[in-house]
């Protein structure tokens, strides 16, 4: 983990200090958080053992917008190349440790930006594999985010129809602590929402909505069966 962070820090943070000498601690943290976000983006890309061009491009665009400026591209490209090589070689980083640092230093809004980047990365090649979805689930826990908000972000950035093995509970924002009544109500709300989208003018949304309706009705069916069994 530390090697990649050092690379990123040396190149990106070094550049940042030069440009922003005299900034306070919060800005220093912002720079560091953005670098850590890039590292997580790469980890998201590498977690299925393949780093596609589309995924790298997504990370690069995010990094360009959030870390560098157009007149300082040399160090930026150097950092990108080194980071790509690091992950291509099969190395990995301690994502939970990085997230721990992020949760201490960064406000909630920044943490949502980071998971958004990772969502965009895993969906960039048009399919979100099981390992990538597992990565996002972990990230949501490590970054201490709100399940409902993350579920809504998943709708937008990782639609169910591109998910290789959809985890219905995670997608719908359900968790084990919910009572049966709460689950029913939540499922009803989700059903209402997606049922209203099955006639959307956009075909991809219609497909997403039909898939979501299938998932919701299966969950409801499982809940009903469990209750019947208990009775």
């Amino acid at each position, binding site marked *: 983990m530390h090697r990649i962070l050092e690379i990123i820090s040396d190149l990106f943070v070094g550049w940042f200090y030069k440009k922003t000498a005299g900034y306070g601690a919060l800005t220093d943290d912002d720079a560091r958080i953005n670098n850590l976000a890039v590292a997580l983006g790469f980890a998201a890309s590498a977690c299925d053992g393949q780093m596609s061009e589309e995924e790298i491009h997504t990370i690069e665009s995010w990094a360009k917008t959030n870390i560098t400026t157009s007149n300082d591209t040399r160090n930026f490209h150097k950092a990108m190349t080194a980071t790509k090589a690091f992950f291509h070689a099969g190395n990995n980083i301690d994502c939970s440790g990085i997230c721990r640092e992020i949760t201490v230093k960064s406000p*909630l*809004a920044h943490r*949502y930006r980071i998971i958004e980047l990772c969502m965009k990365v895993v969906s960039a090649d048009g399919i979100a594999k099981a390992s990538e979805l597992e990565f996002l689930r972990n990230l949501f826990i490590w970054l201490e985010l709100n399940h409902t*908000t993350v579920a809504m972000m998943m709708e*937008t950035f990782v639609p169910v129809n591109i998910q290789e093995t959809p985890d219905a509970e995670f997608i719908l924002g359900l968790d084990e602590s919910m009572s049966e009544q709460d689950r*029913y109500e939540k*499922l*009803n709300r989700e*059903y*209402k*929402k997606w*049922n*209203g*989208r*099955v*006639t*959307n*003018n*956009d*075909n991809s*949304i219609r497909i997403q909505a*039909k898939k979501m*309706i299938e998932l*919701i*009705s*299966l969950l*409801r*069916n499982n809940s*009903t*069966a469990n209750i019947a069994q208990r009775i």
Partner: protein
Amino acid sequence: MSTIAGIDLGTTFSAISILNSIGKPEILPNSDGERITPSAIFFDEENPDIIRVGIEAINSRYINSKRSVRWVKRHMGDNNYSVNIDGKNWTAVELSSLILKKLKQDASAEHGQIKDVVISVPAHFDEVRRKATMDAGKLAGLNVIGIINEPVAAALYYASTQTVSGKIMVYDLGGGTFDVTIMNVEGNNINIICSQGNHELGGIDFDKRIYEKIVECYKEQYKDSLINSDEDSAKYEDEAEDIKKTLSRREIAKKMIYGSSGNLRFEMTREDYEKSISDLLDQADMLIDIALEEANLSAKDIDKVLLVGGSTRMPVVQQRLKDKFGFAPEISVNVDECVALGAAIHAGLTLMSQDSTKVSAGIAGGLSSINLKDVCNHSYGTLCAPIDRETGQRIIANRVILSKNTVLPCQATQMFYTMEENQSEIEIIITQGEDADPRFVNRIAHKKLKLPKNRPAKCPIRVTYSYDLNQRMHCSFEDVESNKTLEVDLSLDEFSQLDEKQIEENSKDLAGFCVK
């Protein structure tokens, strides 16, 4: 005076009824003497100008399924759907018009010219689908004076034939669609409270589960595929439907399946069948829960459950409703016919409100006491750019102005503000849907409102939407300071995929075909 009729244009079956001389609706049998007509079409092989609609079309599917079409209703409003027969691409509207033409022809043969009709649609159909249904009627040479929601039509008929009062829930599970509607009924006064529905939940989905089971069993026994052609597929779809119907009467259904590798004795118990469709019925249960919540009611507040649609014959449907509401659902009206019968009553009421001279005194007398109050079927709003509370950034969001289930006629106003100094115009997008996220709502109109020059930001814009009893929406966007106003009228015609000229041309094309 022409005959006033109501048509139930169903996914699997259709029916037509007329108002008799004293304003009572009656079903008109087709030329085969059947009271309902399969919504199936077959393009004759020997005579390309002949199109068969009904039972003959069903039977012909086994001979040449490529020339047959069923379940068109599922594709209403879908621009990408068409069926190519002899080089002509038939749209869902054109295909539906053939079914309507057959109904009209058979009815006219005995009762004179049928012209003014109301056609029923599922309650959850959006404007595009409603308009597509109207266009199909026009292509069939009908004067479509209105569209009525299927559960409302059923309730109209029910209330006109029985003494009813209290909160009624109409459970409409047909061949291809499901609707649940809650209404308050006091004698002949019917006030709709809310509707929910799914346009891909019905008999054909239940049949599919049996069909899949047959195919699976055959594969298991013979390690070979049962389905080797479209005709095989058509045949076993109908076998599956037959098994489903048997299971509504008996505990077990048995069928010999004659495949190319050998014969299979297929058996299915009612219990296994009910298990196989339980997730689909759970969807119907969820929609009931949602409708009850929208109506601010619980199951114990419902006084009666009225069944509509052939799929409600399944014992499991009736048992589930009994378990939920604590009483057996009402089965005193014919589930296949009540929608068409109610549509005819609505046609009479509509004609009376439009031009009472078109309705005979006898009919007017029969209908005069019926009073129906409907609600808005969808939410309508506009796109705006508020500041997101969480991120503090400006986002594009959909803001609902007129909410679904508001009693008609209705009107609602909201204030918005210009965003920039010297803003010269406002981009106005009218939406249909409840989502705040603009990606998930349909944009139904796009207009621009020019603004006076040299003004600061945050000038107020008053947006008012109203919706009348004839399903016409009026929107006004007023710059409060200058009184400059943009008025937008949206009737169902706005959603047409065909203009009048195209309808005329298509009608001429279709006139060349003989529907039998």
